[in-house]
């Protein structure tokens, strides 16, 4: 069985490392991108099954990435979980209406991330 794939998009190497450890623990093969533009280039090649997405990043932010992703061929497929320090209700609603499947407010831990993966049906 091929392992499931998750792309972690965050400009913080530390967050990527923390998230990677948790997501790998859920049985995913993980790739990383440091901003939306890198992530978009990655997705144009291979669509991951799950994308963990920061909001505020240099070059291209998470929201721009999400909108562009959803217009790509096959771009509706990945489950996208925003994962950001932005916690205002309006912003969360904005992310969901832009096509995010769920939303994780930082700080988070393994239990939260695991339960979010379960809610979107990724595990």
């Amino acid at each position, binding site marked *: 069985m091929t392992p499931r794939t998750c792309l972690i998009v965050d400009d913080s190497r530390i967050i990527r490392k923390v998230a990677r450890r948790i997501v790998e623990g859920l049985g995913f093969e993980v790739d990383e991108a440091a901003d939306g533009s890198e992530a978009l280039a990655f997705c144009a090649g291979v669509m991951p099954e799950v994308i963990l997405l920061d909001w505020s990043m240099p070059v291209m932010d998470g929201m721009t990435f999400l909108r562009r992703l959803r217009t790509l061929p096959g771009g509706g497929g990945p489950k996208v979980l925003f994962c950001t320090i932005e*916690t*205002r*209700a309006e912003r*969360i*609603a904005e*992310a*969901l209406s832009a096509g*995010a499947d*769920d*939303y*994780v*407010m930082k*700080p*988070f*831990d393994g*239990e*939260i991330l695991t*339960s*979010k993966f*379960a*809610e*979107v049906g990724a595990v």
Partner: protein
Amino acid sequence: MSPDDFDRLQSLMASRAGFRLTRDRMKLAEHRLGPLARREGYETVDALLASLWAKPVAGMAWAVIESLLNPETWFRRDRKTFDTFAGELLPALSAARGGAPVKVWSAGCSTGQEPWSLAMAAMDAGFPVEIVATDLSQRALEKARSGAYTGFEIQRGLAAGTMLNWFDQAEDSWIARPQLRAAVHFARANLLDAPADDHRFDVIFCRYVLADMDAARRAQALDNLERRLVDDGCLFLGADEGLEADSIAFRPVAGRKGLFVKTPAALRRAA
């Protein structure tokens, strides 16, 4: 904490709450009692316990008991349980009750995540419910009643969309909306106490409570749950919890982890 202190704590927990305070929880007990000792103005946990043994004040004894119970819970814990409840049980029970609200008891609700999850699941599925949520711990109930959760707590198990639908943001916390609060009534109750009236429920959730009880008290609690459950009602335990030899009143439902119904032997209150 001396071994004698721990022995006394063990028997206090067993007699009042049926709770099995195993020896490996000695460090944990000391850790949990620390904040209580400070709150009550004692220098150390030992001083708090010495005072309790010398002059057993009921309020203090219960505060000690509460702090040693296991409060861990989260939203939609065992997700399948909530899907079974809203997708299978509620349609059937609601039809059987002619559309009247289905009566639900969250027994051992801790800080409230379970009853709120049940209420959200029922209302999202469009079924009227009346939920009574009880716990032994006043502190846990205060938190449950407040309906307020940190960002950390609220997203443990709850999808962001559901959170936005049912909770309002207030600075650093998320607070249950009035419509959600109206569906749940909180009260303190001890599962060891026999029912004092004949109020009965259609569905009882008693999850991750019995596993911490000693065998005799667990049987007693189960007997009380059975008396509170209508004959065609359902009992949910934790997904991985079993009954083994604890009760002949319930049998597991195949293919539905944690779901139990009454055995024919228990259908004795039909008349």
